[in-house]
Every structure is written in C-alpha cells, then in structure tokens.
C-alpha cells in the first residue's frame, strides 16, 4: 500500500478564527448546512489529505441536520461519517443514522485515580502490568469467564452499569461519575438481534483489539489546579485509563441497522451521498428500533468498562493494599447518539469519535463537578501523553458541546507498519521505561505513536477554540494493548 498523495483540499474553507474554518453550505448542492472544522494550519493540512472533508460535507446532507456539522481537530476518514465528526438532527423531523455513531457503539474512556506516588511504584510496574494483562483479557473475541445467562445479558442491556451494583462490581459513586449514570433509559433489549447477543457471549469485561487498551499513568503536569483538585488528580500520582467499547455486540447492532435502514430509505424519500450514511426518521419505527438497540449496546459498553475497572481495582489492591485504591474520575462515551436540547430544539446529536464536553452550568454535569465542568478524557497515541480537560459552557454554541476524542490517525495501518516493526515499537517504548503487553507485534506496529496526529497540537486547538480547557497531562508507565 502507499500513502495518500498530498493534494489540494477538496473544498475551499474560510477561516473564521485561527482555530476554525467553514465550508459554506453552497459548496455542494446536497449540503443543507455549513461544515466547520476545528484545526490549526498543520492539522488542517493533515485533515485535507484524506477523505475527512468529503465525508463531513456528506453528513451535511442528512435530513433535519441543524446549524452546522463539525469536525474536531483529530478528525480522520472513517466510513460514511468521518471519525471526529459531530452532526445533530432535529428529533421532530430529522433522521438518526447508525453510521453516525459507528460500529463500536459507546466506545469510550474511563479514568481511575489513586493516591499512589508514581515514584514509589518503581520496578513494581512490571508486575502490575503483568497482573493487569492476566486479569483483563485483551485481543479479539471471547475470553472473559464471567458467567451470565440470557436473562443477565438482558439486565446488562437494559440497565448498564447499574446492574453491577448488586453483584458488587460497582459502587454508587461509580454510577454518579459515569456519563448518563452508566445507563440509558431508552434501551430496548428486544431490538438487539440474536446474532448480536451471540457475539456478546463471554465479552463482558474484555478490552478487545485495535486501539483499545488499559494504561497505567503518572500525572505529569497540572494546568488547572482548581479543576484538578475537584477531579482528585494530584501531580505524580498514579492513574489508570481504560479505553474500550461494546465489543462484537455493538458491531452487530450497527451492521444490522445499517442494512435495515439502507433498505427503507427509499420509502421515506431519503437520498444520501454515501450508502453508509443510511438513516431513517428518528420518529419512524426503524429510527426508534435503532435508538433502542443503540442505547442497549451503550449500556453494555458501560458495564464492560465498569467490569474492567473492577478487575483493575483488584490488581492494585493485591499489589498495594488499601493504598492502591482506585476511585473513578469519570467515564465518557465517544461513539454515541444522544437527545439533547440546543437553540430551543430537541436534537439527536451524533458524536462519532467525539466527546461530550458539558460545562459547569449544565445540569447533566455530575454534582461534584458542578462549577468546574465535566471531565473530558483524551487518550493520546500509545506511548504519548493523555489529557484531562474540563468542559466549557461556551462549547454548547460552538460545537453542540463536543470536543475531540484522541490524537486521530494520520497514517494507514500499512504505512505505520512500513515505518516501524512491532519489535521497534516495543523497544522504543521500553527504552522510555514504558512496560508493554500486547498479544500481537503487528498490532503494536499499527498503533505506533507515529501513526497518529500530535495529541498536544490537537488538545491545544481544543483549548484555544474554547471547546474545553486543559486540566492535567498524564504520561504512560505501562500499557496492556488489545
């Protein structure tokens, strides 16, 4: 394979600020609203090099789309929608699109903090990462031996993290510090197919593959002491970041409904520029069925990350006793559709590879973070820093209260492997004192830091644009890769 040839951006975009550009709605006949891209000059050039802008412009064609569609600074080409894209459709007369959520429904990030001093861990990081890799199955398919029946699965799909309370796998504080309380009430397990249920078998409490991971980190730098204090983050303390989603179940839900909506679009008179944008009116039977299934898959993902957090707590307790207690800072989704209110209208906000960033005044921000804003968790690429940001109220008007979700890929998997072998990547990380556990050298190479955009630059754009503000920078000590 070869890299994309650098070429002129497919669309002319007017700079609105140093951090924001706009492609006007007149750029394509099918556009109903403008497309806005948060980026600086360097990120803009990276973004323009793949299909991101074309895919973003295509999302502006969706019926009922409101105000603008947005690309976050980590945006890259995906399938149908770009990854790092935000589009909000009116609930009253707009559509819902499974492709606007993505296959890994409620892929997201969970941050746990401890009072352990990173310096005190020292050489024990090797055994901690080893125990994490043994306690939290990684890689594709089913490995976790949590016995649950079909009825248990229904409970997970209906209740998300809530159903783990009575099993002793979650606490009330955990639920309070999870986006939406770790549970979407609109979930309809009856809309989750037998195939999706079959794929869920044995997958609760597993990381999966691709860019998913569990990482042990050190709080390297605090930039907003008041917000960091509210989040319980202190310099040089140890944190654990978990990145995974709804596994095969979510993928099958998306597969089922893209197919189903592709088949009914003509009946609703909907024409889209790319079949992967398949959609149906939110208020149609098909739209309601997908929303119910998507919420159920989102609940599965929250329960998955909660179960993994429980396992991580066990590892730290075994290694450090009570001193190793891990408390939840927050858990955010970055592949999801949510009904929210903006500009006086009820909208179905599709965030695909984008993180919600509610500010201090938003009633959905957890009570303990009111006055600060919700934590926004931005994982870097493997071996680079991750960021904790705080949501700003101003983001509601700027981006439907959305921000980036990571560094964002810049190179294809093939190009990444031509740059570095898995062995090279492992050696480079280990030379920096980062302990790595990864079942596949090939996947390690594909996820090399060089395959991603610069997370520092991405976060700087988010901060300068006013979408969220910097709170703390976390650097890796050890990682278990999916």
């Amino acid at each position: 394979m070869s890299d994309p040839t650098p070429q002129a951006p497919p669309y002319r975009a007017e700079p609105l600020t140093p951090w924001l550009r706009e492609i006007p709605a007149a750029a394509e006949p099918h556009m109903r609203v403008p497309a806005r891209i948060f980026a600086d000059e360097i990120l803009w050039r990276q973004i323009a090099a793949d299909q991101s802008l074309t895919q973003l412009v295509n999302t502006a064609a969706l019926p009922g789309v409101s105000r603008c569609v947005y690309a976050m600074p980590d945006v890259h080409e995906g399938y149908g929608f770009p990854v790092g894209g935000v589009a909000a459709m009116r609930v009253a007369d707009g559509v819902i699109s499974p492709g606007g959520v993505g296959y890994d429904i409620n892929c997201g990030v969970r941050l746990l903090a401890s009072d352990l001093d990173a310096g005190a861990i020292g050489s024990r990081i090797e055994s901690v990462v080893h125990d994490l890799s043994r306690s939290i199955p990684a890689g594709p398919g089913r490995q976790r031996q949590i016995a649950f029946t079909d009825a248990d699965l229904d409970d997970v799909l209906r209740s998300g993290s809530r159903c783990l309370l009575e099993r002793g796998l979650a606490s009330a504080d955990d639920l309070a510090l999870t986006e939406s309380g770790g549970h979407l009430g609109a979930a309809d397990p009856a809309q989750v197919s037998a195939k999706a249920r079959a794929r869920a078998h044995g997958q609760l409490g597993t990381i999966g593959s691709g860019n998913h991971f569990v990482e042990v980190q050190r709080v390297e730098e605090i930039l907003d002491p008041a917000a960091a204090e509210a989040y319980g983050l202190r310099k040089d303390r140890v944190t654990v970041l978990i990145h995974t989603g709804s596994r095969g179940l979510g993928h099958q839900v998306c597969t089922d409904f893209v197919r189903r909506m592709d088949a009914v679009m003509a009946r609703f008179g909907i024409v889209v520029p790319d079949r992967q944008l398949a959609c149906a009116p939110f208020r149609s039977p098909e739209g309601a069925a997908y929303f119910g299934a998507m919420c159920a898959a989102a609940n599965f993902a929250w329960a998955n990350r909660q179960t993994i957090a429980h396992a991580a707590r066990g590892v730290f307790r075994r290694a450090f006793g009570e001193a190793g207690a891990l408390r939840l800072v927050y858990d955010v989704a970055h592949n999801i559709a949510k009904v929210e209110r903006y500009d006086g209208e009820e909208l179905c906000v599709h965030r695909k590879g984008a993180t919600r960033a509610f500010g201090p005044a938003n009633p959905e921000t957890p009570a303990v973070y009111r006055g600060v804003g919700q934590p926004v968790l931005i994982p870097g690429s493997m071996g680079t820093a991750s960021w904790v940001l705080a949501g700003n109220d101003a983001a509601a008007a700027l981006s439907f209260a959305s921000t980036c979700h990571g560094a964002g890929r810049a190179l294809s998997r093939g190009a990444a492997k031509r740059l570095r072998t898995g062995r090279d990547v492992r050696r480079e990380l280990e030379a920096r004192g980062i302990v790595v556990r990864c079942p596949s050298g090939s996947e390690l190479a594909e996820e090399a830091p060089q395959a991603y955009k610069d997370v520092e630059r991405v976060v700087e754009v988010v901060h300068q644009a006013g979408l969220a503000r910097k709170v703390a920078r976390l650097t890796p000590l050890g990682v278990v890769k999916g």
Partner: protein
Amino acid sequence: MPASGGGSSAGATHELVEHVAEVRVRLRAPSYAGLVAEAGRALGALALRGRAGRARPEWREVEVSSADRAALLVDWINELVFLAERDLWVPTEFQVECTGPAAVRARARGVELDEAPALVKAATFDRLTLQERDGMLEAEVTLDV
C-alpha cells in the same frame, strides 16, 4: 494504487487499497460468484494474518441474500465475520452458486482457531462500488477494523 496483502484464485484477485483508519479491499473476478468467493478468501487472509489454525475438512453451507449485488458483498462478508467470531471458524475455500439476482449459496471450509480472529469487525457500505471493467467484475469494500 499499489497494493499489498493480496491473493488470487481462478482468475480472481484481491488487494488492499489505502485507507487511513480502516481496511479497504479491491476485488476482481471474471464472474459474480467468483467475486463473492474472492471476498471470502480476502477476509480469510485478513482474519488469519499468517496464523495456520486447525484444518476442518467438512464443508459448511452459508446462504445470503440482499437488496442488490453490491450490498450482497457487504452482507456476505458480515456473515463470515459473525461465523468467525461465534464459531472461531475461518473459511478459506469456497464454492459459490448464485441462486437469485442478489442471493448466493456457498459451500465453505477452512480452519478452526482457539480464539476469534483479529482485525476485521464488520464490512461497511462506505464508498461501496461494483462495476464491470475490462471484462472483469471489480468491487471495493471498506472493512471496519
């Protein structure tokens, strides 16, 4: 565009096309049935990534029907992804018969694994193409990985 990770059988070929985040596969075959079989072989190669697995001599039957022939390629790959994840079974040999305008019946056999194959999680409709070129059928499908 240059490609790697390809393969061929009975005049059919597949190759990987550049995509920043996912995997895009270009398939070519003299017939539609051949194209479907080649899609199965491409998925098998991506799923195994050099792993051998345990050979399973028995043939299994897989039937898929769709709205049209382009969609059928997506649905066919998705059916194989599902079987791989549920049964830890990756087919590598195919005998495909068209049973309708957008319907196929395939006999397939392959290998069994100890754990589900990595990489491909779904086939998508993203920029899905199916066209005739130089007397061959050519399709491109984006796979979610």
